[in-house]
């Protein structure tokens, strides 16, 4: 088996070509039915494409879960000049590794999706903004773009449709914040990667000051399949409000971590115990971060009945985010985990907004002190208060993301904090 783990309960639509090196090439991809959807879409009106995507109920896979068809319809009805599509391939959320695999194994799937989306929103140019550390993925993607240009799928008058679309692969410089859509545009333009104030929203003023739509890699990869088989087909998987399949990046204390493509609404406990082969022998579940490091941490009780769709995870007290499931068993010290996450956010804060710039660093320092046994219970109150100050007060949501795991871990795993504080007090007293 070329690719690490597969499971029979998976529904492999997006990940269908994974593990098959030939799928990376244009010929191989065409053999799998590639570029049929593009041909079909270009023959349709752009409104019809948007309607099909709306019918599928596809929701943005970057984390927010915003309906994709609706997002596309925000673009100007009357085109007045250049318009852009940005593909967000700056995947850097701790715990997330799905886009990397999509780029590595099925670059043509993404290119096809980009072209269809560009047609739907009348974009003249597609920018695929790749994370700076994706060396191999960028090489594979760039080669695929070259192939597609040579084959006439990209460029002037695609397949004789009269539509011209260009694609540029842009490699970032390795800043997490450039995954925020407006920071991505600033970075693309050659500026510092600072999130912009909204409004104006990208659909009005985006990259290079022109109307722009920005979609996640996984979202765009789903588009060719929807266009081939229709929106109703896509709805066969998943739940009413969260249709389709989703790539789950499972990491942490399970026997078989990895990427699994499962229908949305899949029960979390079955993901852990069935698909991923369960916890390590003799361990019990302590905590789960269901959607990448930016979402609240769930304790074992909350995981019991949780289903992995946008609504189900919210009901369980967290968010699906980009479905990066981090599993922690009882060997985990939550304080240390949270401290590492906050360190990450402190390091990656762009430094624009005061609450984030100072707050993330301050939290990291306090957590470090608690971890080293020099904390007090008062520190926990300070942390919670700082978290309040950092939530909803900044231009982007990076500081909210840093505050969320701190607040949820103090609420749900206070004993972990108290144990360190008490031990420190004892040592200090002795």
């Amino acid at each position, binding site marked *: 088996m070329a690719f690490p783990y597969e499971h029979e309960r998976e529904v492999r639509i997006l990940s269908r070509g994974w593990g098959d090196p030939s799928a990376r090439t244009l010929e191989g991809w065409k053999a799998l039915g590639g570029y049929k959807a593009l041909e079909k879409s270009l023959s349709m009106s752009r409104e019809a494409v948007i309607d099909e995507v709306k019918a599928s109920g596809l929701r943005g896979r970057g984390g927010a879960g915003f309906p994709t068809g609706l997002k596309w319809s925000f673009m100007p009805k009357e085109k007045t000049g250049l318009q852009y599509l940005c593909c967000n391939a700056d995947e850097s959320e701790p715990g997330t590794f799905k886009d990397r695999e999509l780029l590595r194994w099925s670059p043509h799937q993404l290119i096809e999706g980009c072209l269809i989306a560009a047609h739907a929103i009348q974009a003249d140019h597609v920018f695929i903004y790749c994370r700076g550390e994706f060396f191999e993925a960028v090489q594979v993607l760039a080669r695929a773009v070259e192939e597609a240009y040579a084959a006439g799928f990209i460029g002037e008058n695609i397949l004789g449709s009269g539509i011209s679309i260009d694609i540029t692969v842009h490699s970032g410089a390795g800043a997490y*914040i450039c995954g925020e859509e407006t920071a991505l545009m600033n970075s693309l333009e050659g500026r510092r990667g600072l999130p912009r104030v909204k409004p104006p929203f990208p659909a009005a003023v985006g990259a290079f000051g022109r109307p722009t739509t920005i979609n996640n890699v996984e979202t765009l990869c789903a588009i060719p399949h929807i266009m081939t088989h229709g929106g109703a087909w896509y709805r066969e998987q998943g739940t009413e409000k969260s249709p389709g399949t989703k790539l789950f990046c499972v990491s942490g204390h399970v026997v078989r971590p990895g990427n699994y493509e499962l229908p949305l609404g899949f029960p979390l406990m079955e993901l852990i115990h069935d698909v991923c082969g369960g916890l390590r022998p003799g361990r019990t579940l302590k905590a789960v971060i269901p959607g990448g490091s930016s979402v609240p941490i769930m304790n074992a009780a909350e995981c019991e009945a949780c289903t992995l769709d946008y609504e189900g995870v919210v009901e369980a007290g967290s968010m699906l985010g980009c479905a990066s499931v981090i599993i922690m068993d009882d060997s985990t010290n939550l304080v240390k985990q949270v401290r590492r996450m906050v360190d990450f956010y402190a390091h990656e804060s762009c430094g624009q907004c*005061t609450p984030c710039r100072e707050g*993330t660093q301050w939290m990291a320092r306090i957590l470090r002190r608690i971890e080293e046994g020099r904390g007090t219970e008062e520190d926990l109150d300070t942390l919670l208060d700082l978290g*309040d*100050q950092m939530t909803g007060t900044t231009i982007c949501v990076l500081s909210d993301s840093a505050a969320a795991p701190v607040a949820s871990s103090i609420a749900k795993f206070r004993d972990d904090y108290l144990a360190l504080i008490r031990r420190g007090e004892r040592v200090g007293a002795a």
Partner: protein
Amino acid sequence: MVETVTLTIDGLEVTVPKGTTILQAAEAMGNRIPHYCYHPGLSAPAQCRLCLVEVEGAPKLQASCVTTVTPGQVVHTQSESAKTQRRGVLEFYLKNHPLDCPICDQSGECKLQDYVHEEGRPKGRSREPKRVLGRDDFGGDVLFYGDRCVMCTRCVRFMNEQAQDPRLTVVERGNRSVIDTFFEEGVEGSPYAGNIVDICPVGALVSKDFLHKARAWDLDRIPSICPNCSQGCNIELHVRDNLVQRLKPRDNPDVNQHWMCDYGRHRYEWMNRSGRLLLPKPGEGRHAGGNGAGDIALAQSLPEAGSWESVLGDLADLLVDARAEGAEVRAVASPFASNEDLGALRRFVDALGGGRIVFRSPRTDEELPLPGFPKLVRRRDLAPNVRGAELLQMSRVGSDDATGGLDDLVGFEGILVVMGDDLDDMAPDFGAAARVFAFLGPQVPRQLQAVTCLLPTVTHAETEGTFTNFEGRVQRFWPGLHTHGEARPAWQVLDLVAAAVLGDGTVPESAAEAFQRLADDHAVFQGLRYEELGTRGALVNDPVPLPGA
């Protein structure tokens, strides 16, 4: 007709033009929302997060500096959530602030100090060590104290947007981010870089020239006009101990917006010059030779140097005689003199039969515009009132360094009046042939031996009056320094003499009256009223059209 929007801020209704931001609307009604990154002359990045206010119906607090008003909007700047936000943000600002107010030049005019005093926590909660960045020389007049910086990026944006000379940037990110220069020379040589010190809301950017010179609360701030070129930038004289300590720009959207150039900013020391003429003095040594400057200075210190009554009385007698004998009159004026002084000189010369008035003015070939506000230019004429002198039919003579051009006056035998020009480049016997040689000026002249009388006058920093800038805008300045000795405004001196010579008793009693008479006498000033000039000035009747306007 400007479209307007009516909204409610803190329970009060306010109507403002469409497109106004909440912060500006609040400011218009006298409610100042705390802010750092917003500056009216720069773009608003909304990153300091201090100006967040509660807007009914919005899920989160809104940055008032970028949120435009909408009809019927209800804004609360003092709600619990807005206050909590400000208290929290201020605590974040103090997290790494060194609290070195006692040795900080900004202390007393520091926005961090002000806001924290108003709304901050009484006690900080941080137990962590502070980040230390230290001090950096940014070149030119600018010194950077990194620890005091609040990262509002006003300085970076000024250099990018107004000076359009991007020499500053933010390096690193997050908590490690710091303002820095690209190259070693920093802002050195950038002609408007001094403004970044003005707009820095805290003590991060300070002036080397002003470093540790005076405390902000000891300074008197007097509205004035920059006397260093003909742009006529509105400024404040900051005065302590009867000395000008520094110049700061004063807002005037028609002239200099919020800015001034470094050339003007750093030329204030001459207002503090010693060696002043203190008392009026008859020229005892006239034609006798040997009455050097040192003797005059010595004579000044003696009470018998003369009183205004006797000196002016003697001068009037001489002038009456000379006039009776048909002596011609000629005068040398100065472009540093006010409109009132120049008007009085014009009137004085005309009363004695009329004659040519010349002036010498320093001039440069280089204009220094501010690209972001191109109306602001360090002009070629390096004096404040060249235009005023020209409007009163005075003619420029001499070279660009304000020397020469007076050769035809060397052997002049009539009545010679010199006002404000120190004649430093002329031979000691300049004016020896003149029948009467009256010298009015603030300084003791270095060379002159042949004067009939020395009449001490004040500088513009010591009196009130008006200048006319390059485009014909008449602007007022106010007195900031105490007068030295018995110096008087030149218009008063000239008018008293003229009244004595003509036997006409009407003498203006104030600068306002002197200006009013100027406006009555000269068509170009007609209709202007001193009281109505206000702090923004008014154009004369044949303004010079601005390039591109």
